[in-house]
């Protein structure tokens, strides 16, 4: 119990949220000589926000490195980014992120983070993404270790509620530590508190009742209170409230923190039906890694936000088993019973689908062009009939990774007011401002690069404005 007095002694810089972005900011500021207070709402055992679930970051590099193959030019990186966001990107900020990405890799290495080559099963990332040995939590453990050694004062179970501003200058913030309210003044604040995907009320206000059926893949602590408070202070926002990274995951995953293991890779080899037993989208449109992120939205649009991937035994072994066991039955009607959907409707859908399949060569690993005929929606690749029992099903639900609505920032990571003037001593990094770069879509490994690059910038700039 440290927060016994209602007003705490002043810190130079307060960092709000101890994920990857927050730690990068706190360490950089402390190394510049600032006294840093790092406030984190979660208990110590569950620290690290969404960052604890990550496994890699995307890095531009001119030549092969110890853990990255070939070269990945800044131009290529930018192109990949613009392709997924359809140009919905602040290019000046994107260029900073890309240019600084290789220095970030070196910096993390110097701060105790170990990298490894792309892990098995991560397709085509050997050239672009550096993997953390042991994953995001191992990376965070190293950074926490370093922050503690630098004297950063880390307070767990401390939720930041509101910021107190005077003429656009940050003065103090209020926080709650186990029911105890405290005001802490500081010369600058860095907001690294993530998105708001875990804030049920906020999500419901955008998505309606459907939000109740969303699973949150990461931390239950990213409720976006600092973001909400900055909206109250008339900060300029970026990104659309509905934009987020959402993937289709196993419906049996926990409501929060299921992380990576609830993903499913089987969808392209079968069909997907909703709870009316109807197909609703081309399951074989493209390789699954390129499509899994749109399926989150597709499933979110179905009744009760649930869908079922249905396969037969011909393709068993082509996809990784999920952590949850397949639902198996020897005939379609029994399977429908297990899934609690209309058996006749499911049988009809599958009969119709089977009739639309054509003969041709099935090739699991390439776009084989084995498409259906005369059926809506069509299936463009891997369209094998479902005719070999036992039949297999996996339930799907939308899994929200993080929301994109966030604070607009400038190149020094200052939050911007509605007038276009930056808040002089309020900075933002990570998920809370990722929308500047990811207006829509997602490019694997950019979340951590955004957090690391802008976290370091924010730490440096905050220390400079003391």
């Amino acid at each position, binding site marked *: 119990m440290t927060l016994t007095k209602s007003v705490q002694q002043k810190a130079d810089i307060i960092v709000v949220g101890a994920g990857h972005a927050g730690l990068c900011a706190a360490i950089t500021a402390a190394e510049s000589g600032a006294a840093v207070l790092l406030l984190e709402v979660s208990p110590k*055992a569950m620290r690290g926000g969404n960052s604890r679930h990550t496994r890699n970051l995307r890095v531009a590099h001119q030549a092969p490195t110890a853990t990255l193959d070939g070269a990945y030019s800044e131009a290529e990186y930018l192109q990949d980014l613009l392709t997924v966001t359809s140009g919905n990107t602040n290019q000046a900020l994107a260029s900073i992120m890309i240019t600084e990405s290789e220095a970030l890799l070196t910096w993390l290495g110097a701060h105790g983070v170990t990298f490894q080559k792309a892990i098995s*099963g991560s397709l085509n990332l050997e050239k672009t993404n550096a993997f953390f040995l042991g*994953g995001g939590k*191992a990376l965070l453990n190293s950074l926490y270790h370093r922050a503690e050694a630098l004297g950063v004062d880390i307070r767990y179970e401390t939720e930041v509620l509101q910021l107190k501003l005077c003429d656009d200058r940050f003065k103090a913030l209020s926080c709650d530590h186990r029911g105890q309210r405290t005001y802490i003044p500081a010369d600058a604040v860095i907001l690294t508190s993530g998105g708001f995907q875990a804030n049920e009320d906020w999500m419901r206000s955008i998505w309606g009742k459907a939000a109740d059926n969303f699973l949150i893949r990461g931390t239950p602590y990213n409720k976006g209170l600092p973001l909400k408070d900055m909206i109250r202070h008339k900060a300029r926002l970026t990104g659309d409230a509905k934009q987020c990274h959402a993937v289709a995951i196993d419906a049996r995953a926990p409501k929060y923190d299921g992380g990576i293991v609830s993903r499913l890779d089987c969808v392209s080899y079968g069909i997907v039906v909703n709870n009316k037993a109807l197909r609703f989208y081309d399951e074989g449109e493209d*390789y*699954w890694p390129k499509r899994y992120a749109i399926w989150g939205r597709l499933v979110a649009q179905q009744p009760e936000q649930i869908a079922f991937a249905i396969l037969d035994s011909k393709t068993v072994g082509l996809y990784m*088993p999920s*952590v*949850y066991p397949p639902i198996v039955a020897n005939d379609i009607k029994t399977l429908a019973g297990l899934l609690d959907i209309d058996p006749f409707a499911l049988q009809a859908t599958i009969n119709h689908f089977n009739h639309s399949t054509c003969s041709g060569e099935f090739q699991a690993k390439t776009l084989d062009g084995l498409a259906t005929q005369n059926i809506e929606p069509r299936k463009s690749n891997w369209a094998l009939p479902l005719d070999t029992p036992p039949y297999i099903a996996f339930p799907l639900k939308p899994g929200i990774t993080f929301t994109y609505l966030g604070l607009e920032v400038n190149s020094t990571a200052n939050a911007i007011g509605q007038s276009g003037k930056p808040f002089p001593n309020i900075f933002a990094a990570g998920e809370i401002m990722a929308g500047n770069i990811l207006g829509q879509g997602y490019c694997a490994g950019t979340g951590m690069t955004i957090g690391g690059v802008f976290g370091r910038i924010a730490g440096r700039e905050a220390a400079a404005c003391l």
Partner: protein
Amino acid sequence: MNKIENLLNIDVSSVDPSVEADRTLTVCNACRYCEGYCPVFKAITYRRVFDNPDLDYLANLCHQCGACYQACQYAPPHEFGIDVPKALSLLRAENYARYAWPQRAGKLFQNNPTWLSLITGLCLALLMYLSNASVSIDETTDSGNFYSIISHSVMVAFAGLTFACASIALVLGMRRYWQAITDKATPSFSLAALNKAVRAGLNLTHLSKHNQVGCPGDSEGPSPWKRYSHQLTLWGFLLCFVSTCTATAYHYLLGITAPYPYQSIPVLIGTLGGLMLLSGTSGFIYLKFNQRRAMQMGQLQLDLTLTTSLWLIALSGLLLLVLRETNAMPALLLVHLGFVFGFFITMPYSKMVHGLFRMLSLILFYAETEDAVGDPAGSE
């Protein structure tokens, strides 16, 4: 569907260790973040489902360095409650009994390791004493001559018998384990693979790579001190063994009988070995009681029994050397030899076997990695 329910946090101690290891590694295989840490994570990528001998093989590959636990996003209090080193440690302990020959002895020992070790040691000391009843231990001894307490032939008989029993039981137990884990696999064994396995095993490569944070005082972090303690214990033990062999050679080949002078080769090697063994086991005992995690690892009693008996053997041996010309010698000698021979008899059932299980698993691992191609895990 029971695997789903099992994903919820459960009291691991009440569950069959194979079931818990299966659940744990199924989560790891869908995650794979720890792939770079050690052979366990590489070996799971060659498999999609885990059944029993496979799980045993994987459990014995683990060196319990703790790196993957520290890194795990699903570690308790996460509801998945993943603790790979603990799950595999519990399964290993069960393996030591299940593959032991005879199995019944393994189970019996596992249930009461401390008492059985103590009783065996004391009984053997008593037996030796009785077989030499003619000699009184109160009698002032003749300048450190052990044979005036226990005749040479009695000593040889006890040593030979206990060592032979231990060797037979060990060989049969290990054969049983090897047959089980290679039952389905037919990897091509090469000299290169064998070489790699032996090196990795003796260097404790997989205990050292990623655990350089922390120190003995650190109650959470993995620490290099475990490896240091282990190496001191292992090489100290082997030096003591070498010392005994040299002494045997002195006796039979060179005709020189004990007591040997302090500067003789058997005594020098034995002293060095004894000191290493004493410091290594002291290190282990210190770590056990000072690392919160170490207390929870599921082999606490087996571990402590082994380390304390080795500690006692080393201490009594060193004291014997220093006090061999005093009145304490007879009692010390009986205790020391009682525990040494007791140690041999119980060896096939004690934690000592972990090294052999692990070595066999490493051999299979390096043979298997020469052939196998990891199974790609899909997307993202």
